[in-house]
């Protein structure tokens, strides 16, 4: 297959290992996390509650529980990523799962092996859950048609990055100490506003956050230049769009800046980086229009002083580092819920 498949944890087959307290369910009962279609708000809140428990685990001296002992998690990364893959691997190992890492460099993709054939090969390794990243939207969904294992989308094209959105929601909930309002337990983020600024068009993080935050009752304001901000998104319930940074930030509980890719300039979408910075860079000054308690998020990696000013990224409103830390707890909760949790 022309790719590096490395078994990074000593293989312990399920036959020989003592299984954790929860019996391992039959493979066909698994479910997937592709996007948030079909997920109810109470299930999503339960995931965040589980993440709270996992966060406790990570504060212990021995940061490991046997919850997923005997399970094998395979990370399938068809696109370069270090941070997300490490976060998932940490989340799996902290629960004593075995981890198999498959990384297909761009060159091997060009050799033309189809995703189905790659999966067919990996199926022989008997993974219980695949963590999949792919440059084409929809690949994790396609894989669910060909495997009985659970599939977690770790980012597919511009489509979705649901664990990033979950960790953002988790961070948002903890930073703002949000409790579900009385009488609206299914819309815990009611009355809250998230603003996302930047290259919305090409962002799976933005799409997943739109889906998740509106599902939980929040308002989402999307902001950017017209070339990077598709007007169709305004048709989604709970979403408004604006080209004014001030309008987006005003009254927000949280503002998220998205990474600006340099290639947007060469593809005639932006006149220059300076023009973007002048109109859309998120700064301490711009944040004055937000609520007093408003936090600043960024999915990383950041372009310092491009989409976000250094003073803001390093300042008291910034929760960028918490986001990374919370990523592990949230991914632990996702793996646990899909593999052994009740839903």
């Amino acid at each position, binding site marked *: 297959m022309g790719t590096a498949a490395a078994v990074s944890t000593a293989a312990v087959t399920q036959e020989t290992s003592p299984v954790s307290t929860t019996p391992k369910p039959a493979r066909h009962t698994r479910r997937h996390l592709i996007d948030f279609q079909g997920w109810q708000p109470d299930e999503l809140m339960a995931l965040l509650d589980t993440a709270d428990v996992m966060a406790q685990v990570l504060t212990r001296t021995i940061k490991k529980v046997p919850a997923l002992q005997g399970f094998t998690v395979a990370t399938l990364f068809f696109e370069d990523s270090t941070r997300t893959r490490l976060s998932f691997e940490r989340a799996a190992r902290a629960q004593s799962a075995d981890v198999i890492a498959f990384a297909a460099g761009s060159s091997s993709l060009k050799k033309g092996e*189809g*995703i*189905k054939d790659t999966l067919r090969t990996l199926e022989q390794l008997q993974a219980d859950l695949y963590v999949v990243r*792919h*440059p*084409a*939207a*929809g*690949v994790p*969904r*396609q894989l669910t048609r060909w495997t009985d294992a659970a599939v977690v989308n770790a980012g*597919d*094209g*511009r*489509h*979705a990055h649901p664990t990033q959105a979950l960790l953002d929601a988790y961070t948002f909930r903890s930073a703002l100490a949000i409790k579900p309002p009385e009488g609206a337990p299914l819309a815990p983020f009611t009355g809250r506003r998230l603003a996302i600024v930047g290259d919305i068009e090409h962002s*799976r993080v933005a*799409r997943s956050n739109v889906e998740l935050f509106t599902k939980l009752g929040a308002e989402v304001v999307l902001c950017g230049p017209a070339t990077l901000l*598709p007007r*169709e*998104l305004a*048709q*989604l319930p709970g979403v408004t769009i604006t080209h004014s940074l001030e309008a987006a930030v005003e009254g927000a509980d949280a503002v998220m800046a998205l990474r600006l890719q340099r290639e947007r300039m060469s593809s005639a979408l932006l006149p220059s980086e300076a023009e973007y910075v002048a109109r859309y860079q998120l700064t301490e000054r711009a944040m004055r229009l937000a609520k007093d308690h408003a936090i600043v998020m960024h999915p990383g990696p950041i372009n310092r002083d491009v989409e976000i000013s250094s003073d803001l990224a390093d300042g008291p409103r910034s929760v960028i580092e918490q986001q990374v830390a919370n990523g592990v707890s949230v991914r632990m909760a996702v793996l646990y819920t899909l593999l052994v949790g009740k839903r």
Partner: protein
Amino acid sequence: MSRVVVRGGDLRDGAGHHGRHDLYLLDGTIEGLDLGGRVDLEVDAEGNLVTPAFLDLHAHLRDPGQEVKEDLASGLAAAAAGGFGTVVSMANTAPVVDDPGIVADLVSRSRAIGKARLRPAAALSRGMRGEQLTDLSALKRAGAVMITDDGVPVADGRLMRSACEYAAELGLVVQTHSEDPSLRADGVMNEGVVSQRLGLPGNPDAAEAVMLFRDGEVARLTGARVHLAHVSSRRGLEVAAWLKASGAPVSVEVTPHHLTLDDEALEGFDPLYKVAPPLRTRADVDHLRRALATPVIDSIGTDHAPHTLAEKQRDMLSAPFGIGNIEVAFPLLYTELVAAGVLPLERLLWLLQDGPARVMGWGAPRLDSGHPADVVVIDLEAVAAVDGGKFASKAKHTPWQGAELSGWPVATLVRGELAFTR
């Protein structure tokens, strides 16, 4: 000598509804009605529709070079199974049909195969690279009836103009693939709220509308007969209607998939639904359906575009464009349009018979004596589920797998010979 009777069918053609007759075919032409006498073959059409076999001006038969997807034998058999007696094959093969020798080879091999008649199209530009004209007069002499770079839009307006000047002089029909390449960009589905939700690169209807306008204006400028293939959007069809109303010598084709599927089909990220131009919105589908009954639309072409299952199981960005549909085209349209009360049967037949014949300048297909004995027998009543596994086409996967349809061809005769029987 070969004499055939198609017995007891309900006869219809573009001249009208003729009622229940025995139709006699002699040596490849229609002999007459209710003649009696000895026959070599008897086709039972009791209770079924008997009508001229359909004409498809737009099918990708993938031969030469892409026989893993389809070849002449499977493609012409699939056409006959769909009730088509004549197929215009597209030129985007490997090598491209840009050489008279390839055209001649297609013609001679198709005669040996039988099944549906092949009338090949030839490429408009060499290698379909959009740079240099093909030798249109030689291609025509070899048997090409149409020129088209279908599959690839002709980006260069001047090349399009030159091709149309030649085509007008030679009396060849030019078929377009009207999408502006720069506006279409890397789009893999219709641009709209669905593509935005799915995060798939969109191809806006404006890409089609802009290019239809250019192609129509080039037709007007040069006097060439230009067939605007697979018009898929409301905006595109409005441009085409305007072009026709203002006297441009253009005709308009729509496809079975653009009449029956919309962009929500892509929700499951299944490249089976990836096609160019893309499946549009429900509003576009409804507009196309309403226009079928008006003179804006001249023909239904299948744009049958088979690929291997493995190719259609790639990811959404790298899977090829195209839907194989030639065997379900009529039952699909009959069920969704005629049986559903949206379109009269006569109009659907017209769009598959007289309409395409008129586009090409061919005689209208009739059941009168002396006409070619290309006839299809269709059971309009029996309902059966689509089973791609039984297709004659090499592409056994279909968006309509399991769909309960009526209007299935039960026998197709071409040149007075049985080309298909169910």
